[in-house]
């Protein structure tokens, strides 16, 4: 166990956990931030996606002792009230079915649009391919990303 000081969603947190604890479980078990989801634990499904200094990473394989000073953004911190353009586009297109994968999809999409404000269909598919949706909302997700890109 060791003390780690973390910057999450523009706030300072301190946790006392084993250094090998993935950020996914630091967020969920120790900080009560449940928006970041567990789906596979081996970076195959993308449900655990967070931002580290604005870049999308899979928190299930991002160990707490590797974060250091970097700024973490989780789905809870993407916006104040769900008014990030990606979240708004998700609501406009009523994307979700069960909804479990969607925070991870949104985080990956938000990071993509930060880097490529106007992605092609192929670029969307490539960037989003690590995020599984078992309910099959892929077609809607693509449309929502294109809508968010326009705004």
């Amino acid at each position: 166990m060791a003390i780690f000081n973390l910057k999450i969603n523009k706030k300072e947190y301190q946790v006392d956990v084993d250094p090998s604890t993935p950020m996914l479980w630091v967020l969920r078990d120790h900080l009560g931030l449940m928006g970041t989801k567990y789906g596979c634990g081996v970076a195959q499904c993308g449900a655990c996606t967070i931002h580290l200094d604005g870049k999308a990473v899979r928190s299930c394989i991002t160990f707490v002792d590797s974060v250091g000073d970097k700024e973490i953004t989780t789905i809870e911190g993407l916006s104040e009230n769900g008014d990030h353009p990606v979240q708004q586009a998700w609501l406009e297109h009523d994307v979700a079915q069960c909804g479990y994968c969607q925070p991870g999809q949104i985080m990956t999409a938000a990071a993509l649009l930060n880097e490529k404000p106007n992605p092609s269909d192929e670029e969307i598919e490539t960037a989003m391919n690590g995020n599984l949706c078992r309910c099959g909302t892929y077609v809607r997700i693509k449309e929502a990303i294109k809508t968010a890109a326009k705004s």
Partner: protein
Amino acid sequence: MTLLKTTYNRRSFLKSSLAAGGGLLIGFNWLASGCASDAPKGLVIPDEWFEINAYLKIGENGVTTIYSPNPEIGQNVKTSMPMIVAEELDIDWKNVLVEQAPLDTSKYTRQLAGGSDSIRTTWTALRMAGASARHMLLVAAAKAWNVPVEELTTEAGGIHHRASGKEAGYGEFASAAAEVPVPEEVELKDVGEFTIIGNSKKNVDGLGIVTGKPMFGLDQKVDGMLIAMIVHPPAFGMKLKSFDATEVKSMPGIKDVFSIKVYNDDYERQWSDTTSFTEMVAVVGNSTWEVWTAKLMLNVEWEPFKEQKYKAAGWGGNTQEVTVPGGLESTSEHKKKMIAEAAKKARVVRRDGNPEEAFKRAAKVLERTYTAPFLAHSPMEPMNFFADVKEDSALLRGPIQSPEFMEKTVAARLGLPLEKVEVEMTRMGGGFGRRLYGHFMAEVAVVSQKMKAPVKLVYTREDEMTFGIYRPMYHAVYRAALDADNKLIGFHVKMGGIPENALHANRFPAGAIDNYIAESWAIESNISVGAFRAPGSNFNAAAEQSFLDELCEEMGVDPIQFRLDLLKRAQEDPVGENNDYDAARYAGVLELVREKSGWDTDSAGKNRGVSAYFCHNSYTAQVVDILMENGEPRVDKVYNANDCGIVVNPDAAVNMSEGSVVDGIGTAMFGEITFNNGEPNQNNFDSYRLIRHAEAPKKIETYFVENDIHPTGLGEPPYPPVMGALANALYKATGTRYYHQPFIRNTFEV
């Protein structure tokens, strides 16, 4: 306007008191944040609530909370069921809040997610709930205004007396309405009067989902809660021998390690108690990572068993004794056994005319074999459940498709009376049938009882994917007899499976062909199976619809016209009895997809396949268009035509159809669980392949047949046929017929 007697579960209409605060949901902070939908913009939460019946309460300002009775699995009944209540209540959807109802068999019927049946089985009860509440408001207003109730009308939450010009919102009379006796008869709207049903409404949990609110079972956290994980045998055919927890017990954050018996020895299992491993080791501690780390270090010894027996409730109330065979099974053996069994005599399930004679005199016989592997449901949220078991009561909460059944299991396991066990349903991160089998509820209850603490049980993806309760492995041989004029004179389907087959003997084309025979066989196994999205249909649609395609090619006829001609026969002069489909409606979806896909006019240069199917009371026809991209097939477009009667929430219905299409393509192309000496070869998404963004169709168009038939299901019907349409389109694109799923391998070689 229809008059309906309120005989449907009258207890639903027992009013509770005028007490404010809502009697049904008290004190659980987690529930308040997780289970209530987000309030629409501008909606003001009332100071006081008045319970009108089990389905709704109205605030003094007219804002209404509607309880959604069925478990939410992503089929969005949490939006569509309240829509139906709101319609007959006649309120403005803008003033509606939705809450998940708890399990309460005295108030609600069939709180189950399965069979694509939520809307179909509750359609009338929901309408009655809304209509009777509306009636009670009118009676209260009539009394207050001293006018005949017949002179009052409602509109979107307002009551009007035209003659005098008096008007008021529902909120004004909610308190008085709660005292009005439940009416014997209520008026229901005509379909043509609907203003909410048939108009798309956004998912009531949409905002919570996109902002990461804790809504799923896995998101639960209460003070003093411990985390538990299980360790199960690595292979089917094995059981617990011994374990050594000395080291693990002293690891950081670990509270205890012990073996658990999931069911008592003499327990008679219900259908929902299906499980694979009834003796496992539980590791309990403070946090998920600590428990997981300890679990991986645990020394456990397993040993093969000769056979296992248990009691099960049989159909018709008697008790069956079930024997699970021992043995460490491998897929190579499965395949060999299937090939051997398929060649033997099987059980005749249906026989019309004289099929043997027809095949004898046939000028040509077409015979093809289709297979599909075991599948793992793999919903995105892994299995989990919460329990807080006290001395004489228990609270369980989590993702479960069959709460009414599992409540009984838990009560029996804990030795508590049923009324002392409470079950609350969280939102589910998918299910597909896997969460019908709530063994994890018995498991967490046992752990919580032993630990005397609230416990959340978490399955890792590896735990779950190797746990079983799979979709069975299937084999089908189709034969068609053609005479010298290339006319179809006989049809033979022989379906087998491990441990069950997929035969639906009374489905099309039974009823349309004079000489028809359907047979079945099965090979026993210790690999456990359960209902998987569209059981049986999820294989036989693919096999049957691709066989029909190949048959049409042989006969030189158009695949859609061929089916329509057979359906005409089934409608006008059906063969045999118990034909399990409405031929006219089946033809309807084919005609709709033919029109919308431009089948007759727009097919040139396209690699298209068609398919149609009936299951779970609804009809679907699909056309799949495939493009070759860099020598690889890619699904370009899918046309989806559904007949599910009245569509309650159109955009959500489109979403679900699209999802079924994507899921079907993924299943047929990639899904596969195989075994080596009882051990599954796949344990996570690196080895078990699911369809991803880049493999989804580029475009999906969905259409609905418009009619006034009472709503039927949509969670399952569009899923099976797309696999047949895909196989047929792939043939056009590649010149190869696809017989064996997963299509990326397309082989049944041992």
